[in-house]
């Protein structure tokens, strides 16, 4: 199965889910003729048709794109950041994230540490000192 056809199948499932979920929307009294259901159902139908069109095999098979571990490391680091930002505070959390991203992009450990610390200090100076925008202070305040 080519990636393109798998995408088509996923889109059809998504369209079906959206259309199904739209049918449960009810308004006690009909204020306007369209209601909350009509438009999402129509859009879901169009999405489903697009998905079906992708199922038709085309000239050249669309190969699976290359897969590597690096982006998933980044995803894990970012998810950790979202959860740790408030408890740790902006400076340590951001230094940790930026340092990890630098490692993923091929920096050696020491430069990565410098990038992490530098990035977080720079952004902190920009947001907190210069622009006076709220950042989480965390335990280190």
């Amino acid at each position, binding site marked *: 199965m080519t990636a393109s056809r798998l995408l088509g199948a996923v889109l059809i499932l998504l369209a079906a889910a959206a259309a199904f979920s739209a049918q449960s929307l009810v308004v006690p009294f009909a204020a306007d003729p369209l209601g909350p259901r009509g438009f999402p159902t129509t*859009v879901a139908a169009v999405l489903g048709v697009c998905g079906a069109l992708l199922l038709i095999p085309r000239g050249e098979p669309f190969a699976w794109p290359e897969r590597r571990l690096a982006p998933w490391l980044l995803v894990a680091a970012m998810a950790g*950041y979202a959860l740790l930002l408030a408890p740790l505070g902006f400076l340590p959390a951001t230094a940790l994230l930026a340092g990890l*991203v630098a490692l993923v992009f091929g920096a050696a450990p020491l430069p990565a540490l410098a990038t992490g610390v530098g990035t977080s200090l720079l952004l902190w100076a920009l947001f907190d000192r210069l622009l006076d925008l709220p950042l989480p202070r965390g335990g280190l305040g």
Partner: protein
Amino acid sequence: MEALAALGGGFAVALAPHNLALALIGCVIGTAIGVLPGIGPLNAIALLLPFCLALKLPPESALILLAAVYYGSGYGGRITAILLNMPGEPSAVLTTLDGHPLARQGRGAAALAVSGVGSFLGATLSVVLMTFLSVPLARVAVAFSPADYVALIAFALSLLGAVSDAPAPKAWAAGCLGVLLALVGVDSGTGVERFTLGSLELLGGVEFTVLAIGLFAIGEILLLAEQRVRAEAAKLGGGRGLSLRELAACLPAMLRATGIGFVIGVLPGAGASVASALSYTAEKRMHGTDGRFGQGDLRGVAAPETADNAAQIGNLVPMLSLGIPGSGTTAVLLGALLMYSITPGPLLFAQRPEVAWGLIASMYIGNAMLLLLNLPLVGLFARLLLVPASVLYPGVLALSFAGVYAVSNSAFDLLLALGFGVLGWWLRKLGVPLVPIVLGFVLGRMLEDNLRRALALSDGEVLALLHSPVSLALWAMTAAALLWPLFRRRAA
């Protein structure tokens, strides 16, 4: 001249010291992100939008800043294209064809100068056209009924498939995804919760900045982490500079490119990439015998760069006058205005002249600033290419999250932005264009609201959508745009 009087009012806004400073900051940021591969105007504006909101900039100042980043990026993309043979922006692809050979021959400085002048000329002449065309276009659109608007938005969305490089069903599917995302939250018309999956945080809908930063900034970095490409820069220094005679020889090409670029830009759906490709091809056809196109012809640099900037400005015309963005970046600018509760469209020029005319006036000033910045400082901007990926991308990523957090103060939105980032990364890998998602997102609610109004006026009679000549013509064009990909595939 009514337009000139209004423009005068606009200059009063644009010349205020803080707005001048914002335009300059925008121009510098715009050129810089144009230079850097992997960060385009779309991500940059998405990243700056939270700052505008958090700093409570008035809407006209925010728009002046964000628009300067937008048209400034058209000046930066060429630097990377010429020196690295790698387009800093998608619309600079054609610039590489002659620009990089010129740089290899030691004439990089001349190529940069001629493209800088071309960018300025294309942008400024287009702003002049915009000054006189926007209000007449808005007047036409004032007479549009809700049914006409439904047809216009449907046409704009159908064009996505016709002009996209990707297979049409993928572009349309992306547009539908954007529309469905726009429907998440409490429906303004009926008060019903839609697609919230029971989450309290989603009751207010998906925040536009979260979607744009996630899809474009975070998604791009995930893609870059997977690919890891880095090219070697050609030397800038040495070689003859640009002579006046050479510049004069390029002038006709620049004027033609301005015309092509502006017209293509005004059409919804077709963007700067199409314009620069068309104008390059046109010049190559005209000078096929006497030119050295492909081996380093200055006109081959001037034409696409001029058309690129002219189209960028042209893209703003339907966004301001009709409220229909013609490209992904103008969709983000429209989203920015919507976050300020300003709806661009026919009434904008009458109701918020300081926003509409302030922006137009600031573009005259901004383009002059860009020319002055770019001619002497081009070497400084080119230095940005020396910043290693392992320093640049951690900064961009941290800035993305800090920006999302500054607007929403919620860990939920950080995770949502990450989710959109993963979505954008995977869709890109699967060859699904992302621009239709933002277009669908900003147009989706507008489409439903107008549909609702049209059907309320007609008491639910669906055929009333076809009653006016304008809507009939637009539906016919929509049908043509939907069928076009079939013929295109046969021809290819």
